[in-house]
């Protein structure tokens, strides 16, 4: 590792990419060079590329994923999420751009170094679970360790631990075909965590599951992350899932990132009509926290009620409905640092509705 990861500064960048492109087609590099002058006008760029039989699956994406945060890539089907994710792991070779893991340029890394990194630093969960059908649950979970040449007793011990962690104890001897979808994905999660990766990639991990199971799995995921505090890149096309899980979200369209920020930032100020359209499905009051919208405390007021800055507005609504005109917001130390008024909450609620 070039720089030791430290948990001291929460905003330390773990993984970043700069101006990343991935073109599909016969001669991607030439097409890229030819299209570069048009880079400002995305629509013309796309039609130009289509003319020469190319598709830009990822078109100039830049992002930074911070230590121990859940970073969600969201977008409609075909917007290039999976491709971007695979460029970050170099499962797909980008056409141009930079990928930095702890400051190390992955695209310049040797094959040997990549194998090293994938064995120890990265874990990935797949949409269709990606379980090896000929192996039992135990062997599937132990697979990454077997690849590293770890002896059987050690790797099975570790695999049992992981299986326990995802709540599948007792199913070690089953084959994937004997498990339900939710159980299969738990195996996938256990496997991806077996090597104790620093970065955890999840490509639509819950999309193949029924809504009810999906919710359970999301809760499970939140529980795991509270324990493990991994750096996570999570891909989904489900807006609700994105806003529910994310620390920060990047919304993709036609291969580019159209807006990036915390759920509240996006909910409060959608960058364009396209994103605003997405937000119609989002319960705004459940996404925005008190600290996101509070104003400085007016001079001569002493609020009757005080809430924590991390409380979502939905929690404040009952207070407001009881006739409290304004609620104080306190920081972690307990000092009152701001206020939220009933009128402001009503306004936000109306925005969310239309």
């Amino acid at each position, binding site marked *: 590792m070039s720089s030791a990861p430290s948990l001291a500064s929460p905003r330390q960048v773990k993984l970043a990419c700069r101006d990343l492109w991935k073109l599909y087609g016969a001669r991607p590099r030439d097409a890229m060079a030819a299209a570069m002058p048009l880079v400002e006008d995305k629509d013309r760029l796309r039609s130009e590329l289509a003319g020469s039989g190319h598709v830009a699956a990822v078109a100039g994406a830049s992002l930074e994923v911070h230590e121990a945060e859940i970073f969600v890539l969201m977008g409609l089907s075909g917007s290039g999420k999976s491709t971007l994710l695979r460029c970050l*792991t170099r499962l797909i070779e980008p056409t141009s751009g930079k990928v930095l893991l702890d400051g190390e340029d992955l695209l310049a890394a040797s094959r040997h170094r990549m*194998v090293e990194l*994938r064995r120890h630093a990265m874990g990935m969960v*797949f949409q269709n679970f*990606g379980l*090896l059908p*000929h192996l039992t649950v135990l062997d599937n979970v132990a*697979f990454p360790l077997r690849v590293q040449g770890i002896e059987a007793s050690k790797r099975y011990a570790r695999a049992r631990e992981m299986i326990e962690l995802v709540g599948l104890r007792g199913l070690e001897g089953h*084959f994937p075909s004997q498990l339900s979808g939710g159980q299969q994905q738990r195996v996938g999660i256990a496997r991806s965590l077996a090597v104790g990766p620093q970065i955890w990639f999840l490509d639509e991990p819950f999309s193949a599951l029924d809504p009810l199971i999906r919710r359970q799995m999301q809760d499970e995921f939140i529980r795991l992350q509270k324990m493990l505090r991994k750096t996570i890149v999570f891909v989904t096309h489900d807006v609700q899932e994105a806003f529910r899980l994310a620390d920060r979200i990047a919304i993709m369209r036609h291969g580019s990132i159209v807006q990036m920020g915390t759920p509240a930032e996006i909910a409060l100020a959608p960058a364009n009509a396209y994103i605003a359209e997405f937000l119609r499905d989002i319960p705004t009051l459940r996404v925005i926290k008190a600290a996101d919208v509070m104003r400085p405390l007016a001079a001569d007021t002493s609020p009757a009620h005080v809430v924590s800055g991390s409380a979502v507005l939905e929690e404040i609504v009952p207070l407001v409905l009881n006739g409290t005109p304004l609620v104080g917001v306190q920081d972690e130390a307990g000092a009152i640092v701001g206020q939220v008024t009933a009128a402001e909450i009503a306004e936000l609620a109306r925005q969310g509705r239309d």
Partner: protein
Amino acid sequence: MKSHIANLFSPAAIRALAVPGAILLCVVAGAKWNWIAQFPDDWTLPVAAGINVILNSIIPNILPLTSTVSHALGTMLGSLVATLQFLPWPAVVLAVMLIGFKAGGLRLLALCLCALSYIVLAGFWRQSMATLSLVILAVPISVLGGFLLGLGAFLLPWVRRPIELLFDFMQTFPAFAYLIPLLLLFGFGPIAGLVATAIYAIPPMARCMLSGLTQVPRELVEVGDMTGCTPLQRLLWVELPSAKPMMMIGINQTTMAALSMVITASIIGGFDDIGWAVLSGLRQADLGKSLLSGLVIVLISIITDRITAGIFAGRRAQNGWHMRWGTAPVLLAAAAILGMGALSRWAAPDLVQGLNETRGVIDLSVVNSAVLGFVGRYGHILDALKSGILYYLVLPLRLGLSGAVLPTTWGFAMTPPVTAFYAAVALLLAIRQWAKGNPGGAAGTLSLAILLFIGLVGFPWPAAILLVMWCALRVSGPKFAFFAGASLGFALLSGLWIPFVKSLYLVGVSVALCALVGGLLGMLAAHNSWLSAGLRPINDALQTMPQFVFLIPALMFFKVGEFAGLIAISLYAIVPAIRYTEAGLRAVPATILETARQLGCTPAQSNLLVQVPLARPALLLGLNQTVMAAITMLPIAATVGTAELGQQIYISLGKADAGLGITAGIVFCLTAINLDRMLRAAAERCATPDQDK
């Protein structure tokens, strides 16, 4: 409207009509200059002799190697046969039944019991064990070869295309043709047949292997990469295990291919096996014997198929307690039974010896007399059938209407007025198509009319080349047209034009018969589930039967000759015609049929106007499969006396003339590959009609 009329006289339309024009010109010119009607002998090249020269310089160099191999294989074969024939049959029957039970439950157990008892009762135990030995030796070689080839093609994408082409060649190249060089290399006897079998059975394994490996889900490959597999680890732990089900199918298919080839290869003789029993029965016109032994092959094939398929299906087909036995213990138990059988042979040598030499108790000499009686009694019906097909299908194709229409058979002659009438009808049809904006169709109709009038044999060779290249150009493109033209050129220059044309019309006639009968059966089966259920096992059995067996019924009812060959070919090739017709018609969505009924179609209308057109791509694919089956059957049919390429190959086998055999084999292969590509391209065009223009 104006543009429509302009279209009629567009350059493309005129150019299309140039084709029948040129053909007509060739026909007329052929009457004056003989070299147009018949390719002059002194223009041909000594291809066969050339190949012989090359072979003669190669063979002595690798002979030491091949004779060592031959010796080793011979020893192995000898001891395997001795072992299998040493084991008392009750032990073998028990062991097979046990394995059959594991693979397919009580039903397969009963099938094994019946089949094996039949083999014993019919008195073919020794021969069966000999055939089995050949298969047991050939299959591992083929599986290994196919595994390596498939793996190689997967790992090195740039060799994939050439290897696939090689597979095409290996599967269409008539076995008789490469038996000759193998005979020269491995000596006369079963070893050459064994090697031929092993070679022939490689492609199914290799194909399954390759497709299994390329079809590994992308996610699983990514799992391998993300866990940091080295390429070797990924291959061994992810890709190969994922491809295992396909490999199992490959082993099953390779075994079946080996079984059918082992019979064909027995034509070399020198080995007392089932294939030889069938053949000698055919040769001595002892139909009872060939029928009995033919049935043995069929039964062995069916059992082998079911057992391998059942065992390989494994866990996924978990339905019954017999499935819960492990494969290894079952095999061990079977081995134990065999071991005990061997011991018993020492314990009571005389008894077991006697057991194994049981003569057949089924006597089918009655069959001979019954068939003879039947033929004598209903000979006139058979004759009528034969002469009907001969006069109204075979001869018109061979000699053309001009030669085949005689007052004695057709009731009239091709007098000038009749000819003029024929020409007028053809012209009218063509004009109608042209007016509909289909000049290509019009040109096709005219060309076909000329072809039918002249006949295949008398059709001038430049016209044939032109017509074929034009068709190839229309269905596929210039590259294919060039390839097709070159193939015809090879047939001409090698001096095999006439046998080639005769092969074509034999295939044509049998395909026409298959399309008629098979198409009708398939259509009925598509509407009648009972018939469909009844046909399925028959089709299954027909498809697992070795090709030689099809000669038996043909010879039972018709004398040695072209017609028996024709019947054998048709019997062999009819299955795809039935299957594809039924599947194609059944695949038409029910909603569309309901719509048709709603619109007031009668069942017949809905059938002809809705179902058949919608099923056209499937029907064309069925036609393709039928043609391919007919072609592969040609060399086998040649053994009962047809006069075509197959016969050339058969003759060359008799004379050990490797050059002639290989040349004929190449022409044969090219014919098959071209027809295949042409029909496939046509089916594809049918499926996507938008690309038509």
